[in-house]
């Protein structure tokens, strides 16, 4: 193998698994350290810069970072005393938001004189808000349009207040609009052609995936009064148009919307609320913690049941029948649900909430304006990198771009679209993307002192305290999760392995004494004769079988061997550097931050 090029920003970025997995590439270990130091405002600002909605995401994020967390690979059940769990990254983010001081003075402001460029954002959800923030700071005049009377999009309409208080939404919307040069207009856009005819330099479409899928089975029309589309129903609850539901409620669907629906139903008078899904429990799309939270509110989840018919008596919905199925997989691993032949179960109900998926809908985009649609999915053709459509002035982001995802993806799209819009208007090549900013600093403070806490904690993951169940169910807007207090937050933050403090190897200084090999608790370091990667991976102190994780190769040693470090399970404890007599190993903080519009 060739020597590793550690000047490539991606190399060490990948080692920071959480940051690499985050769509917005938030510098996670950096803000977790700041939380451990009690520097909540600084931790908040790192988040705010990267993901725009720290308080909101700290409660609602889908957390792609957590399954990637190194602790899920290195924890040992017998040592930790519990199953392998990632650091509670998401809930630590909330800690930064909860305990920060007044940060308004730290927020950027738009320049006093605008640059004269006018941008329209259709839809005022997370993607559009990110575009608006990034561009307004640079002097752009941004106008947001939304059919609803307030900023926030699905953040405000689809997430129940017992998971995300209104005050948190309002606060973070304010941080964005207070940048300046951002206008909001309630307007239901029904023609893109009409918007294009207006005087905009570029248009960003962030309209989400606004159409909930319906279920066309017998009885649907007759029972219409008691069948509700999940996201529409949540939105009506959010705006106060709906405040009651029947005593017996069935929620159809296994995603996070279904979890929000069932928990909301429990608070509006639903006494027997059941979630019924076609798939198996394990294959449900909902995040595991959302399923846990639903079940904790006495909501059973029944699986492998396909809806068959709605039953109506005296003009009123009384129940549903289902078909029992089982999963079968073909040789390609594709699943099909096959009826088991058991008698069809009947479940009584007063109301049914249908949360079986969301779709994009662009009836308001004319098909003759030079904006190409994919023939198969009827989705706009959008570039994955630039987020530009085939109409050069129109960009897409969030769920509107590639179908339903989540808030953190919307923020990532927003940043990328803002870069593209700026490049377009500067006459630059949109494909030429800015490299991330990278800062490399040794953490050595003394012979055996480092500026980070390198003692590895073996505590199992700490649980976020919850409000008592009766109290939660009695109040639609009482937040269920109470958040970590500073003491718990500190303990949880100390579980972070500081994966951004990198082991950096200088072959010229190495005398091959083996001290690092001997001390490494994870057997990550080997000095070996070079070879092809597949061969080398099997010849190490511990075989490196996780091919997703790189081998770090150091060349130029006195014996002609190479230093091979398997990045997979390194604890970043720095003992290799502590035991190194010549300083060939050093622990260096790689602070990697995505470049946003105008920073390049």
């Amino acid at each position, binding site marked *: 193998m060739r020597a590793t090029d550690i000047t490539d920003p991606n190399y060490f970025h990948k080692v920071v698994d959480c940051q690499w997995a985050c769509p917005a590439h938030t510098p996670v270990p950096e803000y977790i350290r700041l939380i451990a130091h009690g520097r909540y405002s600084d931790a908040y600002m790192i988040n705010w810069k990267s993901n725009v909605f720290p308080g909101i995401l700290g409660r609602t994020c889908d957390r792609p970072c957590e399954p990637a967390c190194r602790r899920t690979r290195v924890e040992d059940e017998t040592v930790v005393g519990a199953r392998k769990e990632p650091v509670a990254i998401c809930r630590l983010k909330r800690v930064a938001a909860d305990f920060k001081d007044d940060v308004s003075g730290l927020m950027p402001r738009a320049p006093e004189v605008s640059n004269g460029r006018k941008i329209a954002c259709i839809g005022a959800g997370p993607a559009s808000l990110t575009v608006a923030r990034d561009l307004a700071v640079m002097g752009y005049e941004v106008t947001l349009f939304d059919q609803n009377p307030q900023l926030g999009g699905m953040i405000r309409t689809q997430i129940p207040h017992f998971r995300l208080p209104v005050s948190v939404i309002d606060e973070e919307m304010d941080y964005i609009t207070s940048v300046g040069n951002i206008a909001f207009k309630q307007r239901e856009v029904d023609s893109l052609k009409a918007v294009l005819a207006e005087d905009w330099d570029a248009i960003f479409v962030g309209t989400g995936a606004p159409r909930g899928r319906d279920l066309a089975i017998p009885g649907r029309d007759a029972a219409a009064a008691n069948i509700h589309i999940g996201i529409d129903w949540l939105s009506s609850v959010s705006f106060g148009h709906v405040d009651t539901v029947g005593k017996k409620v069935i929620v159809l669907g296994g995603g996070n919307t279904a979890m929000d629906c069932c928990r909301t139903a429990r608070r509006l008078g639903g006494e027997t609320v059941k979630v019924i899904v076609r798939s198996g429990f394990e294959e449900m799309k909902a995040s595991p913690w959302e399923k846990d939270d639903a079940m904790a509110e006495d909501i059973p989840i029944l699986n492998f049941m396909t809806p068959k018919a709605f039953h109506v008596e005296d003009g009123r919905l009384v129940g549903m029948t289902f078909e029992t199925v089982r999963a079968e997989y073909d040789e390609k691993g594709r699943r099909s649900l096959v009826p088991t032949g058991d008698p069809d179960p009947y479940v009584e109900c007063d109301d049914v909430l249908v949360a079986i998926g969301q779709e994009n809908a662009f009836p308001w985009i004319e098909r003759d304006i030079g904006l190409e649609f994919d023939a198969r999915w009827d989705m706009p053709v959008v570039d994955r990198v630039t987020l530009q459509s085939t109409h050069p002035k129109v960009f897409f982001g969030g769920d509107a771009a590639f179908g339903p995802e989540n808030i953190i993806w919307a923020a990532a799209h927003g940043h990328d679209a803002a870069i593209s819009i700026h490049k377009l208007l500067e006459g630059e090549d949109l494909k030429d993307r800015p490299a991330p900013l990278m800062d490399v600093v040794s953490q050595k403070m003394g012979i055996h002192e480092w500026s980070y806490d390198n003692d590895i904690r073996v505590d199992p993951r700490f649980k976020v305290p919850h409000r008592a169940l009766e109290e939660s169910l009695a109040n639609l807007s009482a937040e269920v999760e109470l958040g970590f207090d500073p003491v718990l937050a500190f303990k949880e933050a100390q579980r972070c392995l500081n994966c951004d403090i990198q082991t950096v190897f200088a072959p010229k200084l190495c005398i091959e004494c083996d*001290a690092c090999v001997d001390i490494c608790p994870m057997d990550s370091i080997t000095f070996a004769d070079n070879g092809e990667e597949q061969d080398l991976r099997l010849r190490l102190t511990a075989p490196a079988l996780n091919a997703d994780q790189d081998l770090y190769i150091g060349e130029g040693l*006195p014996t002609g061997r190479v230093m091979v470090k398997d990045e997979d399970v390194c*604890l970043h404890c720095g003992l290799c550097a502590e035991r190194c007599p010549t300083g060939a190993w050093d622990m260096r903080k790689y602070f990697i931050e995505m470049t946003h519009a105008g920073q390049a």
Partner: protein
Amino acid sequence: MTYLTKPKLHHPALKRNDIGFTRRDYEGAVSTLCAGCGHDSISASIVQACFELSIEPHRVAKLSGIGCSSKAPTYFLGDSHGFNTVHGRMPSVLTGANLANRELIYMGVSGDGDSASIGLGQFAHLMRRGVNMTYIVMNNGVYGLTKGQFSATADKGSVAKRGAVNNDAGIDLASLAIIMGASFVARSFSGDKGQLTPLIKAAMSHPGAAILDVVSPCVAFNNHAGSTKSYDFVRDHNAAVNRLDLIVGAEPMEADVPPGGMIEVPQVDGSNLRLRRITPDYDPSDKAGALGFIQEKAALGEVATGLLYLEPLPRDLHGALNTIPTPLNQLAEQDLCPGQAALDAINASLR
């Protein structure tokens, strides 16, 4: 030194040996020796060897004298018996322990000062008595604890860190051990675990006095140009006679004999010592040849390493004294002290 304890977490694929222990179970406290000390590598090799041999830690007794090397037993086999004795007196304490309880596996850990200066007499007598033990000398050629004066094993003409030249002849502990009657004599290098670990395994399996002279560079005081015990010097002047694989059980030799050929040495316990020849025609059972070879290499400025001398059917101290198989510490008082009648009988037989 390192202030942290080594994290308890370990590689998820960490193996267990036949008796259910991982290699980590054979570790000791975190080393307080200087970073990069060769002794730490030897400790790691001992850990690896005991793991591979599936030795129960409580069946090992590690004894040492005084010095950097003699601190080292704290850093491996944390669950074994340990005795930090008086300077240079490890051999006599170990001999006593071995006589009292012959069932333990004895490991003596010493340095060039402890063995070749103050303890030279004890070293010689331990070898000639054939005490069943593994004697590991962590040999760096300097007094590290007192900041780098030459020790008795420093080669004549080698240069100290501050420029002084050694005018005294160096003591070669391997040659001395052969002459004194050790039945297993090997030399190795802390920077070559591939050679060292199997030698430790073989030495620990050897039923007699086994000595391993391990060149172990002192990074703080003896790892410079002009030193003959530095990483660079030993790597450049290492004349390995053989590589050793220890085969436990009497498994047949594999078909793929390496180019230099193989020597297979059956052991009394039924296991085989298998030597992969590097130096053609080197016969480790030829005592005079071994001594000659070491001298020839030394004259060329090279360090002969590998299994230098092996007596295939050794006899140990217990054999020579004809002691009973039961360890003395397990005998009851009436066995150990059979009374006046027995004493009278002995005295009568001597009149």
